[in-house]
């Protein structure tokens, strides 16, 4: 009440002082009326509409035709210098690696500790988790047949660049890998779990979610160690380059989580190989205990 009365008095005084000013120019009338309000609302609707149109455009996905093995990219990704791992440490990754209930270390046919991966090509969280798992395992052995892939174009974090384990193999002096991609990028079943994978999955992954990783039945995780959007909009080459820059968001997420997997693997290989397991980043990681 006081506000309008005070304002009215002021205006009345001003009007008395300036009686000959006359009506304001017509140009000011645009400011009045519904036009500014409508303009703001329409602008917001148009911008959101543009976002929706962009989101519906299919991404250029080299992996759409068929899984493509790109040795150059794989070589770049799996040869990140140890010094970069050490500079990143735990990085920005989340703590998703849990200790498994007590028991013997799970071993493969060769007697070496066995790591299990259960995932699917459509799954965006599998897409981000694979990067770290591939990098960690590459410090203990050699990958073959890793193909470029992207997560589903219609799921959350669409088209996240990654690799698929569908036709990949892994050789190491320290551990074995048993990996399965149960569905393709469209969600169509492409493989079933082996009895060993199924047993570990049923025992440790109560929610039956993917990605599921079990390292020697000592440590396991369900989900991803970092959000897939860290990788969004980037090519495999972009990511490979960013992995060599310890200050990049990609390196902090991917290598930080890879260091945690490396520490978990070292726990089942008896600290072998020494040059990997005695690195400052790996030694500095405190894995959860039972």
């Amino acid at each position, binding site marked *: 009440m006081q506000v309008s*009365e005070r304002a009215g008095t002021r205006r009345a005084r001003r009007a008395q002082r300036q009686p000959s000013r006359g009506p304001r120019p017509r140009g000011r009338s645009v400011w009045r009326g519904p036009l500014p309000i409508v303009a*703001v609302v329409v602008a917001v609707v148009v911008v959101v509409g543009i976002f929706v149109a*962009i989101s519906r455009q299919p991404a250029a996905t080299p992996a759409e035709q068929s899984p493509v093995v790109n040795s150059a990219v794989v070589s770049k990704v799996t040869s990140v210098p140890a010094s970069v791992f050490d500079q990143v440490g735990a990085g920005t990754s989340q703590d998703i690696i849990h200790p498994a209930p007590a028991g013997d270390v799970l071993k493969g046919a060769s007697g070496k500790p066995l790591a299990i991966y259960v995932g699917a090509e459509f799954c965006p969280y599998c897409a981000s988790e694979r990067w770290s798992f591939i990098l960690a395992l590459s410090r203990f052995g050699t990958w073959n047949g890793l193909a470029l892939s992207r997560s589903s174009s219609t799921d959350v974090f669409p088209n996240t660049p990654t690799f698929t384990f569908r036709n990949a193999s892994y050789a190491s002096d320290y551990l074995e890998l048993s990996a399965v991609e149960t569905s393709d990028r469209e969600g169509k079943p492409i493989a079933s779990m082996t009895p060993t994978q199924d047993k570990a999955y049923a025992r440790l992954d109560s929610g039956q979610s993917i990605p599921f990783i079990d390292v020697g039945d000592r440590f396991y995780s369900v989900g991803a160690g970092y959000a897939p*959007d860290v990788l969004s909009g980037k090519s495999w080459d972009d990511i490979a380059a960013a992995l060599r820059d310890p200050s990049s968001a990609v390196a902090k997420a991917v290598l930080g989580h890879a260091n945690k997997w490396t520490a978990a693997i070292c726990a089942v290989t008896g600290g072998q190989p020494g040059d990997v397991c005695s690195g400052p980043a790996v030694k500095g990681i405190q894995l959860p205990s039972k």
Partner: protein
Amino acid sequence: MRTGPDRTALAALALGIAGVAVSGYLTVVHYGGVALACQQSSLIDCEAVTTSSYSLIPGTDLPVSLAGLAWALVVVGLASALLSGARGADVILLVWSAVAMIPVLYLVWAEIVIVHRICLWCTVFHAIVLGTLLAALVRLQGAAALEEQV
């Protein structure tokens, strides 16, 4: 005697309080590690949005909801100032809410284009920012119209 501009100040106050409530809830959920009350569908997935890297202020570990909380508290302060007759607060409110539309549109872009999921709580907050902008605009229009009549 209440006039139009006072009603817009009340609207801004209500929107500010609602903004404090929504952003406060999202901040508590972030730091408390509790699940968001949010129905999940093929389009709506609050968790996918609030756990993405876009839920953090770039270069920090602080949730964007904390910035939203600070913004809404300032709106409450500005609206209270308007109700108590402070001069110039309406222009500041207009600028404050217009500037807030920049991060709002950025976050809407992240939801629609990157994450492909909508967070309902975030959308409510975005609507509050837009509503505050419109309220500030209507209030200044009212003040300008009154001045022209005199």
